[in-house]
């Protein structure tokens, strides 16, 4: 392992070489490249704001749902629906709302972008908080109660730490989700006008529109660098740190921890010295937090009644605002969508079927390559050491950023614009689906207990029999969890994939995503938009409830490997 300086030196040399090379070959691109760091900062800032909002929301929502039985009766189903709704379904209405509210001011669009990223991040985080709070061991709760932990102290010492592992795990997931939607939402056309907010996403999209190969490559390169850098300095240390907050089993026996959804971070350098400097720099924040919380504890315990009154007042205020917002929203919706069914509403069922077939095709391709590759990587950790990082760099790139590359590739393969559009759509869906499958399956294969493998080997199970009796059954649970996430991501990718602005000729793909885009951006037909969103929600929810959940239930009963 090299020290920090060694790594930095290599990195610096690489960056300088690439920069000089680019400047010589494409002088124009070099000039434009100078603005990229700034654009990266803009994009990242949007992500950070949306993430912080999601964090606050997730903790508040999850905590309330877990501690307030009466509220949870409503809160859980609502969260369940929100979680399965394709996030981009929120985008057109949100866009209309924010653009209208700010009368086209750029600030409104910034709000819309941040809101979209927020919706892509917060639901699973809230569920994570709820799940971890409702699975706190009974004895630990009893200990907290009998030693008198109450209010803020109980939250600080019991509830919040208990939620950390799942919160961090879901944050990593949410963060990569966020990139996908950030890139998709930085530039769009509505009301006959193109709105662009400066950022990496709009940079790549513009480069794609003007067939600027160097620009596309530069944009994607910078994006990859930003994503990987954040993984290295933020998510990896966080996920290592969160291990400390995992519950132990009562038996005291060492139980191997459940395999992560992502096999990520294994190969990233840890930069120990840099981390220490960073920790030293943020230590005052932690100390201030501790001092503040001690003071808060004291306030809580000495003014219990005042605190309760403040909370009641808070609640009343919240209810009033909620009532105002909801009634305004309902009024607006009634006004907007009051009218006869549009003539092309009949196309929705056909569109739903063709969207589904597109997803199924991409899913089939993804399964065909991920199962053997996952089996190989999972069983040969040594020889796959060099493959994993490459796969991860690809996986870290949001499919939306690869849009220009994928379209170019599709056009290169097929000459007719229609077929190329179809191929590009399937490829985009494939790129947003396959990584969930791959990394889940790898974790599944790695999770096979050594004993089981030894038994199989000692009885001479080999080849097809080994696959049928050991490998495939062991993969089933992780295949299903991966499939659920993959299909969710696939539905999200539909809106991007079925309406690609820089394909030659009018994009003509029949599908729900296409209908939604046309209704929002071309015909401004709000009734059609609402109907399409509802159709999509109905399809996704029924697939989840009728196919995935029952399968997962049966699989986890039959194939779960107990350690």
């Amino acid at each position, binding site marked *: 392992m090299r020290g920090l300086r060694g790594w930095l030196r290599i990195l610096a040399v690489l960056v300088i070489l690439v920069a000089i090379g680019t400047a010589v070959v494409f002088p124009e691109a070099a000039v434009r490249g100078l603005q990229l760091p700034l654009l990266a900062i803009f994009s990242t800032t949007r992500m950070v704001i949306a993430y912080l909002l999601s964090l606050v929301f997730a903790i508040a929502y999850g905590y309330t749902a877990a501690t307030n039985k009466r509220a949870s009766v409503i809160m859980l189903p609502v969260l369940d629906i929100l979680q399965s709704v394709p996030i981009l379904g929120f985008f057109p209405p949100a866009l209309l709302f924010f653009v209208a509210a700010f009368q086209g001011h750029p600030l409104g669009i910034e709000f819309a972008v941040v809101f979209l990223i927020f919706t892509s991040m917060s639901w699973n985080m809230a569920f994570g908080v709820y799940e971890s709070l409702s699975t706190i*061991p009974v*004895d*630990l709760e*009893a*200990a907290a*109660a*009998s*030693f*008198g*932990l*109450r209010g803020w*102290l109980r939250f600080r*010492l*019991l509830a919040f*730490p208990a939620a*950390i592992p799942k919160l961090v795990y879901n944050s990593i997931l949410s963060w990569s989700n966020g990139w996908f939607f950030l890139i998709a939402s930085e530039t769009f056309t509505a009301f006959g006008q193109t709105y662009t907010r400066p950022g990496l996403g709009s940079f790549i999209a513009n480069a794609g529109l003007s067939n600027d190969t160097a620009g596309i490559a530069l944009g994607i390169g910078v994006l990859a660098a930003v994503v990987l850098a954040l993984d290295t300095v933020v998510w990896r240390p966080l996920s290592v740190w969160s291990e*400390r*907050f*995992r*519950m*132990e089993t*009562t*038996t*005291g026996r060492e139980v191997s921890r459940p395999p992560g959804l992502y096999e990520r971070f294994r190969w990233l350098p840890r930069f120990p010295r840099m981390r220490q400097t960073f920790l030293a720099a943020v230590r005052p924040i932690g100390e201030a937090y501790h001092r503040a919380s001690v003071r808060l*504890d*004291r306030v809580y*315990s000495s003014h219990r009644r005042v605190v309760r009154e403040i909370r009641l007042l808070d609640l009343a205020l919240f209810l009033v605002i909620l009532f105002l917002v909801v009634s305004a929203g309902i009024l607006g919706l009634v006004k907007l969508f009051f009218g006869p069914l549009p003539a092309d509403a009949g196309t929705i069922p056909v569109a739903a079927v063709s969207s589904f077939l597109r997803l199924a095709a991409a899913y089939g391709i993804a399964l065909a390559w991920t199962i053997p590759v996952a089996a190989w990587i999972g069983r040969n950790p040594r020889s796959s050491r060099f493959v994993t990082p490459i796969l991860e760099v690809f996986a870290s790139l949001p499919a939306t950023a690869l849009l220009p590359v994928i379209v170019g590739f599709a056009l290169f393969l097929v000459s007719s614009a229609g077929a190329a559009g179809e191929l590009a759509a399937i490829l985009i869906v494939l790129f947003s689906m396959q990584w969930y499958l791959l990394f889940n399956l790898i974790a599944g294969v790695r999770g096979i207990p050594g004993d089981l493998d030894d038994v199989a080997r000692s009885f001479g199970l080999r080849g097809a029999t080994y696959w049928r009796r050991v490998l495939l059954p062991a993969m089933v649970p992780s295949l299903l969890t991966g499939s659920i996430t993959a299909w969710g991501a696939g539905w999200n990718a539909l809106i991007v994939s079925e309406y690609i602005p820089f394909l030659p000729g009018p994009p003509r793909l029949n599908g729900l995503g296409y209908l939604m885009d046309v209704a929002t951006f071309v015909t401004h037909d709000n009734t059609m938009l609402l109907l399409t969103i509802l159709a999509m929600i109905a399809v996704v929810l029924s697939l989840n409830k009728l196919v995935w959940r029952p399968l997962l239930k049966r699989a986890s009963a039959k194939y779960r490997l107990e350690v």
Partner: protein
Amino acid sequence: MSPPLLEVKNVSKSYFENGKEFKVLDLVRFELSERDFVCVVGPSGCGKSTLLRIIVGLDEPTSGQVLFEGQPIRADNPQVAMVFQSFALFPWLTITQNVELGLEAQGKPPEERRKIAQKFIEAVGLTGFENAFPRELSGGMKQRVGIARALAIEPLLLCMDEPFSSLDPLTAQNLRDEILQLWANPDLPPKAVLMVTHAIEEAVYMADRIIVLSSRPGRMIAELQIDLPRPRNRKEPEFYGWVDEIYSLIV
């Protein structure tokens, strides 16, 4: 005359499922005074742990009452501390922070907390592990932390819910002797101990008085005064006499 430390008055507990009543405890009544070491024994599923949860105020009885120093019991009563079968240590807190838990809830200043915690960490023989995390300790050491945490709030009554049953036999026996040693020192808390167990031998080895519960619903079969001299010898016929008597009561 002052009231006894703890009064359990005709406590019954039922669970209701689909309109059907499942009785877990039926009219349990006993008292605890200062310097009492009482064990509740019974077959598994007789509601021993439920009884203990009711006694410390974590559960409500369906009927009956639990009085502590003449007042109805409350879960956060700082005079009562609890030791758990599963240790129930907070995995994200160090040993010192775990031991300080109850003191922190009482709002004691940090320096005082640290001093008290240090004293009890020493008392259970864990000096040197102050900054370790629970997962780095063996089962026996974890339960020592649990005991130190309970003693640190200097309770009048110490309640233990099968404290030794997730430890290996050798560790469990060492820890039993250590607890009896701590108990023999009148300068250290608590003033009384109430322990729940399914191991009859363990109860005879440790308790002054044994309350025997029947299997579901838990009814009191007997209340026995164990007048064997301490330290007790498991090989003596009198010891075995007690064990056999309780055994025949339960079966």
